[in-house]
């Protein structure tokens, strides 16, 4: 900082520390409460040092409160959606990058605009569409499954079934993932594919042998962003799931909080902590992609 007098520069650095410390405390304090409360034998609504450290809340969550089920449901639906999105957006992003057809530009504009539509605004029509699809699926499966109808529909149903939630979660994340993959393939030279074409490789061979290995970093970025926003989604499971067996973590947390007369803050904090951990892990990996995806994506 030549030119700036040393004393001023020191004052600015001091100011920078004060600012950063204050903002960091503001950002961290709620997390500190949550983690401490989840370990406190006498957890309260407010921030305090634990009376004694205990893992009882976590044990209760997994032993008595179906915590394993909630976690497994969340993980299963979100991972399935992520895998679907990675495959579909990998193929679609490649097409969007390489095509020179008339539909390319309108399609790219369309996916950017779809991304800005608020999901609450689409919810009612979406629910009606899924209800129709659910009835269709029901009458299709009913003759074959007999007595197991209810449990089969919990898997293949579109309302109150895994399939519906997975499909809707995946579709919601597709636009951003397609955009990430399109931009990624724009940066991959065409030489490799052209060499493969000259060697007589078919489209499927080109995808398997050349494009998938090249696309791995892009697919990782698309997968991480999909995972993060699908994991954090609260609205869709709230509307689409009602059976206790299908409950996911955000709904478990929300419903546990509604039991007003017997709120167990330690247990709630334990659910929230467990729910938070995968999100933080995914985010720490996704962080480096944040700036690149900014230009096309809407942060979720």
């Amino acid at each position, binding site marked *: 900082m030549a030119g*700036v007098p040393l004393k001023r520069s020191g004052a600015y650095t001091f100011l920078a520390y004060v600012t950063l410390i204050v903002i960091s405390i503001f950002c961290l304090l709620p997390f500190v409460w949550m983690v401490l409360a989840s370990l406190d034998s006498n957890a309260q609504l407010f921030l305090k040092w634990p009376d004694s450290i205990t893992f009882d809340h976590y044990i209760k969550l997994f032993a008595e409160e179906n915590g394993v089920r909630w976690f497994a449901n969340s993980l299963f639906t979100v991972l399935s959606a992520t895998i679907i999105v990675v495959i579909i957006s990998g193929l679609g992003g490649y097409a969007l990058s390489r095509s020179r057809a008339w539909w390319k530009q309108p399609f790219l504009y369309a996916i950017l605009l779809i991304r800005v539509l608020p999901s*609450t605004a689409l919810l009612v029509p979406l629910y*009606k569409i899924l209800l129709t699809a659910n009835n269709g699926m029901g009458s299709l499966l009913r003759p074959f499954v007999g007595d197991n109808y209810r449990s089969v529909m919990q898997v293949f149903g579109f309302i109150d079934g895994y399939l519906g939630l997975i499909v809707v979660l995946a579709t919601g994340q597709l636009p951003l993932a397609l955009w990430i993959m399109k931009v990624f393939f724009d940066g991959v030279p065409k030489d490799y594919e052209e060499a493969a074409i000259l060697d007589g490789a078919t489209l499927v061979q080109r995808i398997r042998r050349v494009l998938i290995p090249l696309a791995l970093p892009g697919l990782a970025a698309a997968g991480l962003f999909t995972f993060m926003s699908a994991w954090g989604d609260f609205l869709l499971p709230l509307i689409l799931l009602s059976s206790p067996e299908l409950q996911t973590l955000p709904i478990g947390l929300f419903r546990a909080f509604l039991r007003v007369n017997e709120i167990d803050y330690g247990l709630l904090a334990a659910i929230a902590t467990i729910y938070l951990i995968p999100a933080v892990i995914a985010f720490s990996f996704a962080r480096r992609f944040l700036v690149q995806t900014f230009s096309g994506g809407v942060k979720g």
Partner: protein
Amino acid sequence: MVLDAFQKRRERQMLTLLLPALIPLAILTIYPALYAVYLSMTNEALTGVAAAKPRFVGAANYFRLFSDGRFWNSLFVTFVFVVGSAIIGQFVLGFISAVALRRKVYGSSVFGAAILLPNAAPEVVAGFMWISMLAGGDHATLSKIMIALGLPWVDWLNTFPLFMVTMVNTWRGIGTAMILLTAGLSAVPSEVYEAARMDGANPRQMFLRITLPLMAPTIFLYMLISTVSTISVFGMVYALTRGGPGNRTEVISVYIYNQSFTAFQLGYGAAGAVVALLVSLVLGITYVRSLKVNV
């Protein structure tokens, strides 16, 4: 001629690859958006007579909507929420953090991680954690801090509900703003600062005359994106206040949800949804145009 046939075949292949993405997007996003417009012109409901036989009612829902004080209230609440958190709160605190982190400070990665952590928190977790900070009168963590500092406390979520949800949403987005603005700051070439320093500019002048104007496009894009994504925030507000007390924090997404799934008036709720869709689309088109998408 041979080349032409090859090209055609290639484009057909590309369209085939895109089809698995096109179909779900068409059925589960574009069709629902159009269907919302149709629903908003019916008296469709989840329960009662209208549930069995919905009728076409034309613009009646919209007349009702525009004379509904609760709808205007939700637009006002949404406006304050978006301007307060996305445009002012996240931007100002994110910018300050970005500028502070550009100085050589010890532990900058720790500060960075701390400021980014709220971004990773799912909406419901954010709502839940802030209940501890704000609810419970003198038991709330914020009240205890105020008492420790010898300052007055209030029942935060009842006295300043809208300010509080706006602050919580600010908290959720400082990190993203910081990262994006850091990228924007590093894109300003250092020669420009050198030249200004030679001409005797002071730090404040350099900031106002160089940094801000050069970053204006980044800032503008950032604000558009955060505005659009803030309009669709639902889970955090719903978990923290459920739109209350009264309707004082009922942002448009909570309003639509309440009309559709609490009052079961699907047609009427859809009219509110169409208004939200149009506002977001206008912002989205502005965004796409200013991005000058290089396709």
